[in-house]
């Protein structure tokens, strides 16, 4: 794409992309560290996740300021307008991902006494899938690839399936050993948070599609078996 005649306009847009890339990187790191912390019951690592959340919040505030300025001063149109609006929405999604990762990290000390290693492994598996989804959708945003975005969007079904089976697994543990109920309940919240992060990834995928094509993705997600797995 050619440069704007007024170069500072292009620079503004590049800065915006840069901020979003930084938010994405932060969110990815927070998530993978939170998963690692839960799986290894690492309280120190969990604490670093919690302490990083203000950074991502601050970035979102910065992004919103820049967008307000861009809209008022540049009156972007067509693709530029879609890029700016998408950036606003994606920033919100990433800030929520950060919050959810923090929430997962906070529960590490509450699942401390769980012996049900199997359940923790299940969470770790689901966590790795969701982390991969996040990475793929952020790469798709950087490259502006709608096919890659659509694959992430379709693959959320797998995330949902993981959540369902993890839910059943954890409930079984609770029935078998009522002493684990409290910790298992927190584990269910962690699983739910992961499932929500998966949903945020599909939202970002929809924004990418809208940015590039100007159209919405259809509301019905295609079945995951029909597509190549990554």
């Amino acid at each position: 794409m050619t440069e704007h005649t007024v170069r500072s306009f292009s620079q503004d847009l590049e800065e915006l992309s840069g901020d979003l890339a930084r938010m994405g990187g932060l969110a990815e790191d927070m998530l993978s560290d939170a998963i690692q912390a839960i799986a290894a019951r690492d309280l120190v690592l969990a604490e670093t996740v919690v302490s990083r959340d203000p950074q991502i919040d601050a970035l979102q505030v910065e992004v919103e300021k820049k967008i307000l300025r861009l809209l008022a001063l540049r009156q972007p149109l067509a693709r530029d307008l879609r890029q700016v609006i998408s950036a606003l929405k994606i920033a919100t999604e990433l800030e929520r991902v950060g919050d959810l990762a923090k929430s997962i990290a906070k529960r590490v000390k509450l699942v401390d006494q769980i012996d049900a290693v199997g359940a923790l492994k299940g969470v770790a598996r689901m966590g790795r899938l969701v982390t991969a989804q996040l990475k793929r959708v952020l790469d798709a945003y950087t490259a502006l690839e709608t096919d890659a975005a659509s694959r992430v969007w379709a693959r959320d079904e797998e995330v949902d399936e993981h959540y369902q089976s993890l839910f059943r697994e954890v409930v079984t543990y609770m029935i078998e050993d009522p002493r684990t109920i409290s910790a298992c309940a927190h584990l269910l919240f962690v699983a739910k948070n992961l499932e929500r992060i998966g949903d945020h990834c599909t939202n970002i995928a929809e924004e990418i599609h809208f940015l590039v094509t100007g159209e919405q993705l259809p509301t019905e997600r295609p079945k995951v078996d029909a597509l190549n797995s990554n």
Partner: protein
Amino acid sequence: MSRMEPIMPQLRVATPLQGAPRTQAPAAKVSAREVSVFYGDKQALFDVSLDMPEKSVTALIGPSGCGKSTFLRSINRMNDTIPNCRVTGEVLIDGQDVNARDVDPVLLRAQVGMVFQKPNPFPKSVFDNVAYGVRLHGLAGSRADLQQIVEMSLQKAGLWDEVKDRLNAPGMSLSGGQQQRLVIARAIAVNPEIILMDEPCSALDPIATAKVEELIDELKANYCIVIVTHSMAQAARVSQQTAFFHLGKLVETGPTETIFTNPRESRTQDYITGRFG
């Protein structure tokens, strides 16, 4: 708002249909078909086809020298006044070709009003500015009729309250924005069906611009309006359909919303986002 019937025959009557009726009646008020314009050997417009619907605003956008003003002028045959200017193709108003031999260009220019970038009130009073065309075309039967037409036109142009106490003041004593609205009142006094505007707000301050845009919004309920503008934002604000011209060709036409959020052609996108060479 009722339209007053002119006493002089309208364009339709002046050019009675001869021979077989048109086989394909256009739906649009103004319809250009393969219009090309030449200044001597230089071709300024290349086979432009565009429908401009009634009761709606069509905006023509494009870089300087792209042919949009030339195209606008071909609708009311203002190009006739330019020496060595030749027009081919058809410009149809209500299905009738404006370049047909038996069309009276003077009558045509009453039916198709025009407003220019620099407001050009006549060196006459406010009243006489608006009354000029009415008198010329014999549209008022009496002094009372004339006064009523002048008042109604100034009302429609949103200028009446500001000038009602000084109708005898010179038209040129008004501010820029008022002059432009006076010129619009003058155009609509002769009961046109179509109003052409060539960058009507370029010389106006933002408040005067807003008033003219508000006026355009109101007028579109009754007129077919075609406006040439350099301001993308203005085209986006006032029009329902936008046509993008480049180097004498019509590149893309579409609903204004679509042109400014998701245009088809990359040239259109480049122009409206400020990426042009």
